[in-house]
Each structure stands twice: as structure tokens, then as C-alpha cells.
């Protein structure tokens, strides 16, 4: 049996993104995640966004484990990375008695205590599975205390069973708008040259930390404008209140940024600049030009673009000359990043892109970004293999690795580049944009960084991949279930940013700066 025949047996879908999108919408391809493909629940994602608001306290109404988990993952990591003061995540510590008799009394007491002892600007009361099921009337408790406590207070209904993980992000971004104050002439005038970057998450995620966002801030300021706030990336209540009065909201993550941006547009009329993650020159130019329209700074934007692009033009053109027409396989474990990188590779470098193992589930979670790509004339190929949909982790599963290798067996290895985790093992140049040297990845400098990365990978592709790492990641007795992602939870928690690798221990500062 030839490799091609073997491989064709393992394909679930191979075609344009638009076709996959249509199949998913019509229910003709399975979009649900397997029980082993665990993602954070709605409670985690909601509290992740809330963790990015300074001097706020989250009261997780439920058993202590929920609060401890999110605090460890987000608040402590933030504290470690940014050097910001440690902020509590409170639990009402509901026990068996609370489950039987209800926990409203505990919640009432907790709200008063938190207001008194932490003196926060905002208290967010988030519901957990336990208190959601027993039916505590959290809204009534919160409403009854609104006049009594000094902090602003808001309920977030985010029981873990109440939706997919994406729903927690959307929920909070929509609700944060309620903390904002309407545009008024004075504030609008004061913030006429300011923007909000919306859809950010102040957590350990690599797309949100330090260098990428800072690069966007540098570009906005380079144009002569200001940043009012990165929402919700370490923003203050004051910034949130002023947020509707800026000239324009610019999305960071298109999908999440669109949620809050649309809400703010409908509620306050704040203009929205929503483009895909600013990976690459064309996306960055669009991001800046759209922002400039609302800032009345078109000329400044053009000058900035000319100057920034001018600084990298030669190298980018050299890179394009080497990359044009080559095949790019883009690993799709992070769907939003895969779509954005696909956009960059096709638009900036003229590569043919195949997005590998874009889980059909992602079509629901990333509708906004997919719509954007399709509307702007891009329709990359998607390849989904059986391993993606199998019980067991799909990220870097041994089966998907073998399927990838089988697929590459039928393409020209000399003119193909793989964009994904360094823990994948195709015998072609591998570009890992999470590697610590590739910062920033947004903006013009980011484009150059990515281009340099690709060229370095190509230059040294003669070196065999590390047998040591391969043996570690894909053990012989793994029954096909071994997953590199299983390696990462602890690692990602403990080494979330390249600050760890800095020669000196410089909390909150990245070695790239």
C-alpha cells in the first residue's frame, strides 16, 4: 500500500476553509470536542478576563477549588510576570452544609468582608457549578448590597456547565461595558487622539504578554496617538469608565475584541476597528490605517507605515523572494493564531497555506475571524486528519504526527515550511513562533522577526531534529495517546514568558525590550 493511499484513508476533511465552515454550519461534520480534549470551563475563562482589571476582587461563590485554580493560573502568574502586587481571588468556601442549606448568607458576608478588607474598586461575584445548581439567588444578594458597599459590584453568571470555554470570554467582555460611562463632549475631546486596545487577556497566554501588546502600543504612540486602555490587560476602573469616549476601539484578538467592541459601539457609539491579529505587514497596515481614520491621523499613519516598513523593506523583500510559491503547513492548535499567520504568509510572502488540523469545533469559536478572512478574499486550504477527532489529546498526538508525516510524504519537502510547535517532527524547516527569540511577533518588527525565523529554519534544515526530544515526546509505548500538550500544563504555568530566560531575574521586563 502506498503512502498516499494510506494517508487518504486518514483524511477527514481536505478542502477550502469556506467549505469546512459551511459543513460545520449545516451540521455535516462533527464539531463537538471529545471528552479528552479538555479546555477551561466558562468559569475559568470569565475569571481570566476579570483578572486583568486592577484593584478588583473576584468573589467566586462556591467551593474553594474554583477560586484557587484560577488564582494560581492567572493572578499569581501575572504577579510573577509583571511584578504587579498580588491580588486576591476570594472564595465563599461553600461546604456540604452550604450545598444543602444554600450559601446566600456566606455570600452576603463575603461581599461585606471583601469591601471592608481589600477596599477594591470593583467586586465581581462569579458563580460556580455548585452554587448555580443549588440555585442561590446571587443577583438578589448583590442588588441588596449595592448601596451598602463602597466598591462597584457586579454578578458574573459563569457556572462551568453553562457554556463552552469561549462563552466566558464573551460574557465578561459584554458585561464590562456596564461599568463604562457614556461619551460626553469633554471626555471625547480629551480622548480624541486616544484608542483602546480591546480583547486582551492579562494572563499567561503568549499572545497577550508583554512584547506583542507593547509593540502595538509603540506603533500607536509612534503615530502620535495615545492608549487609553488595554482591555482587559491590567486596566483600571477609571480607564474603563473613560473607554467609550476614545476615538476608536482597536481589536487585539479579533474575535474577543469584536465582542466588546460591538457592544460598546451599540451602547455608546464608540467606533470599532476590527481586523485580524496584526501578524504581518498587510494586517498591521490595515490595523493602523483603520485606526487612523477615526483619529484623523491618516497622514501620520502613512508616515509611520513608510518609516516602519522602510526600515525592514529590503529584508522582507529578500524573504519574499525566497518564500513566494512555497507551501506553508500551519498547525492549528491555536485556531486564531493559525488564521492570522495564514493571512500573513499568503499576503506578505505569497506562500500557499494549508492549515493543518483546524478542529471543526474551532469554526464556531472563531466565526468572526473566519468571516474576516473570507470577506477579504482569503480561503486557505484546511486539512483535518482522523487523529484530530480521536479520543485522546489531539494536539501533537502521535497519530496526528504520523498523519502529518504521511501527508508530507506526498509533497515536495524542499519547498515546504511547517509553522507549529517545535515538538512536531516533519523533516522540513520548522518555524515555532512561540520560541523565545521570536518577539515581538506583531507589527512591522514582528514581520521581520517572523521572516528571519523562517529563513533561519530553512538555512539550518540540514540539521536532523533532536532525537532526544523526539524520544521524549513520542514514546514507543504510548498507544498513540501521547500528547505533547500533556507536557505543557505545568510548563506553561511556570514558564509563561521569556522573562524566565533573562540573564538576570527581571520581573515584568522581557529580554527583548
Amino acid at each position, binding site marked *: 500500500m502506498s503512502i498516499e493511499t494510506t494517508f487518504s484513508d486518514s483524511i477527514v476533511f481536505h478542502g477550502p476553509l469556506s467549505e469546512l465552515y459551511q459543513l460545520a454550519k449545516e451540521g455535516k461534520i462533527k464539531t463537538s470536542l471529545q*471528552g*479528552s480534549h*479538555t479546555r*477551561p*470551563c*466558562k*468559569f*475559568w475563562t470569565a475569571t481570566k478576563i476579570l483578572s486583568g482589571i486592577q484593584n478588583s476582587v473576584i468573589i467566586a461563590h*462556591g*467551593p*474553594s*477549588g*474554583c*477560586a*484557587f*485554580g484560577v*488564582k*494560581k493560573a492567572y493572578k*499569581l502568574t501575572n*504577579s*510573577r510576570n509583571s511584578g504587579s*502586587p*498580588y491580588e*486576591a*481571588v*476570594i*472564595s*465563599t*468556601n461553600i*461546604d*456540604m452544609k452550604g*450545598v444543602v442549606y444554600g450559601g446566600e448568607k*456566606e*455570600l*452576603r*458576608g*463575603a461581599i461585606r*468582608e*471583601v469591601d*471592608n*478588607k481589600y477596599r477594591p474598586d470593583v467586586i465581581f461575584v462569579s458563580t*460556580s*457549578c*455548585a452554587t448555580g*445548581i443549588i440555585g442561590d439567588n446571587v443577583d438578589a444578594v448583590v442588588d441588596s448590597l449595592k448601596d451598602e458597599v463602597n466598591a462597584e459590584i457586579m454578578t458574573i453568571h459563569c*457556572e*462551568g*456547565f453553562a457554556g463552552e*470555554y469561549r462563552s466566558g470570554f464573551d460574557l465578561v467582555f459584554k458585561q464590562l461595558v456596564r461599568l463604562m460611562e457614556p461619551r460626553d463632549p469633554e471626555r471625547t475631546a480629551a480622548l480624541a487622539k486616544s484608542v483602546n486596545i480591546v480583547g486582551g487577556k492579562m494572563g499567561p497566554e503568549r499572545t497577550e504578554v508583554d512584547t506583542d501588546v507593547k509593540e502595538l502600543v509603540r506603533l500607536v504612540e509612534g503615530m502620535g496617538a495615545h492608549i487609553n486602555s488595554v482591555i482587559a490587560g491590567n486596566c483600571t476602573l477609571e480607564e474603563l469608565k473613560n473607554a467609550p469616549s476614545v476615538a476608536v476601539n482597536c481589536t487585539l484578538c479579533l474575535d474577543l475584541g469584536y465582542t466588546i467592541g460591538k457592544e460598546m459601539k451599540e451602547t455608546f457609539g464608540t467606533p470599532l476597528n476590527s481586523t485580524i491579529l496584526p501578524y504581518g505587514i498587510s494586517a498591521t497596515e490595515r490595523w493602523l490605517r483603520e485606526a487612523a481614520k477615526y483619529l484623523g491621523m491618516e497622514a501620520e499613519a502613512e508616515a509611520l507605515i513608510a518609516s516602519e516598513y522602510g526600515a525592514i523593506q529590503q529584508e522582507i523583500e529578500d524573504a519574499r523572494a525566497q518564500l513566494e510559491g512555497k507551501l506553508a503547513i500551519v498547525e492549528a492548535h491555536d485556531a486564531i493564531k493559525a488564521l492570522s499567520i495564514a493571512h500573513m504568509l499568503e499576503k506578505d510572502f505569497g506562500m500557499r497555506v494549508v492549515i493543518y488540523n483546524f478542529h471543526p469545533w474551532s469554526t464556531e469559536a472563531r466565526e468572526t475571524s473566519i468571516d474576516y478572512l473570507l470577506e477579504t478574499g482569503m480561503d486557505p486550504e484546511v486539512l483535518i486528519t482522523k487523529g484530530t477527532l480521536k*479520543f485522546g489529546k489531539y494536539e501533537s498526538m502521535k497519530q496526528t504526527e504520523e498523519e502529518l508525516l504521511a501527508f508530507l510524504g506526498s509533497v515536495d519537502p524542499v519547498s515546504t515550511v511547517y509553522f507549529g510547535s517545535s515538538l512536531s517532527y516533519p523533516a522540513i524547516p520548522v518555524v515555532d513562533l512561540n520560541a523565545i527569540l521570536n518577539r515581538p511577533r506583531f507589527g512591522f518588527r514582528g514581520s521581520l522577526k517572523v521572516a528571519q525565523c523562517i529563513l533561519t529554519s530553512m538555512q539550518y534544515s540540514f540539521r536532523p531534529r533532536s532525537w532526544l526530544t523526539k524520544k521524549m515526546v513520542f*514514546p514507543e509505548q*504510548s*498507544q498513540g*495517546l*501521547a500528547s*505533547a500538550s*500533556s*507536557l505543557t*500544563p505545568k510548563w506553561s504555568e511556570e514558564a509563561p514568558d521569556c522573562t524566565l530566560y533573562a540573564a538576570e*531575574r527581571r520581573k515584568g521586563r522581557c529580554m527583548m525590550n
Partner: protein
Amino acid sequence: MYDELEFSHCSHSKDPIIGCALEGVANVIAGIKDVSIIIHSPQGCASTVATAFDKHEIDFTRRKVGCTRLFETDIIMGASEKLAGMIREADRTFNSKAMFIVGTCSADIIGEDIDGLCREMQPEIKARLIPVMAGGFRGDSFAGIDMGLEALLPLIPKQEIKLVNKVNLILPQSNLNPTWQADLLWVKEVLREMGVDVLSVLPHNMALEELEEAGLASANILLSHDAGYKFVRKLEERHQIPFILGDVPLPVGLSNTARWLRAVGRYFGAEEKAEEIITRGEKLVVDTLRKRALMIIPRYRNCRVALSADATLGIGMVRMLFEELEMIPELVLLHSGTQEARELLVNELNELGLTPGVAFSVDGYQLKQAISEAKTDVVIGSAWEKYMAEEAGIKTSFDLLSPTNRDVYMDRAYFGYEGMLNMLEVFGNDWERSYRSKAINWEQFA
């Protein structure tokens, strides 16, 4: 005796520093080889289970976890069929010898009959099904450890005979000691030297079948002051296996290590060997410190210390800090609060003539308050307490312990003689970092 700290504003709200019962139960299961876990829960609880596996440092190839991912309709209508489907799929895929079916908050509250379902399905499932209810509201992760160990009890058959000089080590890893694996090796090694074999380590890297032999042990040694007491008492009651060394702190520091070794020696008739290990160990420490530590130890003399630790390491450290390093434990903040740990600490403090401020089962707020108000010179804890110390204006903190040991990566023991040297190495390095010259505010000398 001690002065138990009182905190206002803490009766309804907690800033937890340990996980929930689910994490504790998962910690026990994670220590068993060739098993899989199905959690009947919304998807977020899988992160809690992953944390338990992380703490165990389980090889990722051994992580076989499935989650029923409950949603609203499941909560309303029940999800037994969904769970049954998941069990079948996991049995086919994971091919494990046993499968723990764990109900978390949601399944627990809506009353899913996991016991009944397991009984009903067992004939068609290859893996042995073991149901456990572990709603997070049933307690913290220490309580969860006790629940997980309790689930193992029925799997230990009664044995008529006891094997001489064979022990079980009860090692509930979620006592959060970051160096527990190396500590375990040290314990095994000194026991071996004293002619004592370890039958099983509950629960670490053990096959389920090993439980069949656990009943043959002539003694149980609990390597925790935070959890596991109920389990060893039940083993004593049901299997007539004595729980030994319960009245001495674990082997942390020179004096406690010697006490612990002598107690082992007395029980197993290996007093001479114990003395030999003590003499050798103390010589190692003294010789090493003579070369390396004359500049370290005098720095800390009479400095007032806030110690934030689990009881397992914390109780042992009090004597080491006071007697051997001549520091003054001003605050002892323990993460758990078993009655046994309280009694042991009282004994230690009375013997030492100390009356520090003490708090049990502390949370983040209490830690911060106590550290801020006591105005100690040094904080010994984790990276977390280090941030708190910084905010309280305390320059020196030693990042030695869990729960959030993020700045120091150690895989060496804290127990025993080399363990003490390992701790001092962290002390020395952290002290140097605290006083890097670039951090000195030169204007103060102007």
C-alpha cells in the same frame, strides 16, 4: 504554647492557597500506575485534575483522563448515559487495568448514581471500575487526600500474617512539599540501611495490585502532618498494622532527623545503625558548613522569621531554625490544621520555650496580614510569600516551599542531612540576590 493569631474579616471569605477535595482525590489516583480517570463534570474540573498530575510530576504518557464535559441540559436531565458512553470509549482507548470514575461538584449535587452505574456496567468493561464522589465542597485538597485514601481501603485485603521489618510509607503528596520525591528516596535509603524494607508507598508509582501486599506490613509510617492520619488509623484498626513515629516531627534539620532515626531504630531494633547514620550525617553537615557556611549562618542570627509552610515541613523547621540556625520563629503560619499537627507543634514549642504567633489553615489574606503586621526580618515560604514580603517592605525572603515555588527549581531532598544543606543553599542564594548592589539605594548614604 503559642499565641494563636486572630484575624478579623475572615469568617465568610477565603483567599485559598490550596485546592479542593477533587484535587486531593486526583492526587491519590495519580499515584497509581495503569489506571485511568473519568471525571463526571464540566470541563473546567479537568484542569484541577491536571494540577494533581502536575504535582505528582507524572510522565505525560501515563495521564489518561476523560471528562464528560457536562452542560446545562446534562445538569437538568442527568447524564448517566453520557457517562456510560464515556466509560465505554475510555475503556477501548485507554486500555487501563482500572478506571476511577470520579464525580465532582455538579455530578455530586445532582445525585448521579455513579456507584450504581459502575456496578451495572462492570460486566461489559475490561477495566475494574472504582467509583469515587469528590465534590469540591466536601473539603480542601487535604480532605480530598483522605477521601482518596479511604477509597483505597476496600482494595487492601486482610492478611493473617505480618512480615518482619516491612513497612508501608503513606505519602500523601498534596502536602505540597516541592521536594517530596527526593525526600521519599532519602527515607527509603535510610530505612534500607536499618534493615527495613518498604512494601508499598501509598500512593506513589504503585500498581493497584500492590495494595494486596500492604496488609502484610509490620508498621505504617506517615510522611505527612497534613493528611493521611485517618487512613493510618483505619489500617491500624482493620489490619492491625501499627502507626509508628506519629509523635515525632518529620526528619527536618539535624535534631529532628536524629530523633526520627532513633525512633525508627528503636522500633526495628536497629539502634546502632541509626547512631551510625546520625554520626555520619552530622559530620557531613558540619564539614560542609565549615567549608561553605561560616559566612551564611551568622547573617541570620536572631533574625525574626515568618515561616509559612505546610505542617509536614513547617513543624520540623521550627526546631532547625531556632536551635540550629539561631533564628527566632516569630510567626508560624501553617497551611493545614489537623489535630495531630497542632499537638505536635505545641510539644515542639513548649520544649523549645517559644511562643510565636501561630495560625492554622491560613489563607492568602491571613498570610499577608500576619507578615505585614509582625514586621519580621525574613520570610520563609514560597515565591508567593516573597511577593507579599516585598509589598510589606521585607527585603529578605527565602523561596523554599510550596504552594508556588516558581523561582527555584529543586529536585533534592529537604529531609535528612543533605536536605538541611539543600535548604541552606537556597537561603544563601536568596540572601545574595536580595542584596545585589544594584538594588541598594545609594541616596541613602549621601
